[in-house]
């Protein structure tokens, strides 16, 4: 039995099931990160003293990572635009670069984390580091998850292009929506954790 409304839109919603599904998922993600942000506000405002992020964290590395993630959002949307232009080869290049930029982001985070651990700074050290590791750790898991889906779409998943290009394009668009959300979360994490 075929999955319904993958290509054609439902009359009642005006959307494909995949599109409404990913947006509902992202709404739940907003609440997940929202709960952690609210906890951060509560803990920070309730603390007698709170360190500035730039006295503990590496701002130049995080700035570099911000630029990397923004660049990956552009390559992701360009990958989708390539499919809309029916250029599978260009799609592969942009999607490959998107995954590569995700890998660069995680590598930089690995060095950041390693440096903290070597300096004896752990989540249990203080509330600031507990919040830092929780929020950035959860965000890193999202980056990794997005990379896995994108790798599937670049590899075995791209066979769908031969049989149903519209469905494949919709899948890439939905994967892109998740990837942009991950970028959006980082846009707020960066100043609140590193700069304030």
């Amino acid at each position, binding site marked *: 039995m075929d999955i319904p409304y993958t290509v054609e839109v439902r009359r009642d919603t005006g*959307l494909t099931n995949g599109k409404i599904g990913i947006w*509902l998922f992202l*709404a739940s993600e907003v609440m997940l990160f929202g709960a952690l942000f*609210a906890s951060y506000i509560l803990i920070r405002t309730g603390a007698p003293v709170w360190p500035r992020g730039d006295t503990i964290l590496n*701002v130049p590395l995080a700035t570099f990572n911000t630029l990397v993630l*923004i660049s990956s959002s552009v390559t992701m*949307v360009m990958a989708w635009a390539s499919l809309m232009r029916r250029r599978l080869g260009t799609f592969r290049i942009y999607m490959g670069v998107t995954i590569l930029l995700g890998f660069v982001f995680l590598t930089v985070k690995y060095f950041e984390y390693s440096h903290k651990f070597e300096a004896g700074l752990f989540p249990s050290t203080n509330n600031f580091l507990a919040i830092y590791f929780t929020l950035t750790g959860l965000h890193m898991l999202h980056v990794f998850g997005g990379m896995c889906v994108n790798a599937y779409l670049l590899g075995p998943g791209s066979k769908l292009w031969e049989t149903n290009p519209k469905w494949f394009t919709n899948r890439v668009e939905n994967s892109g929506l998740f990837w942009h959300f991950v970028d959006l979360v980082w846009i707020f994490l*960066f*100043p609140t954790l590193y700069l304030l």
Partner: protein
Amino acid sequence: MESTTSDHAVDIDHHVRIYITVFVALMVLTIVTVAVSRFHLPVPVAVGVALLVATVKGSLVACYFMHLISEKKLIIAVLALTAVFFIALMALPILTVHDGYWIH
């Protein structure tokens, strides 16, 4: 049929130009965020500026990369409902003021 395909290609080209413009704006705003933090403004002002710039950047990503600017009403409605609950969540810490947790 030929003209429809051509129109479609022109439409995507227009989108791509917007993506590049948004990309440049996001890069510039990132540099602005870091530069402003170097001034060591008072915490309330610094928080306000940082969140304002982050909101502008986030809106650019949501509106143009995620195509919210031209999205269906149902998705806008879902996100509006999410925004209400999100704002309520962010406001929760304010309740603790009345319990004196912020007073030292």
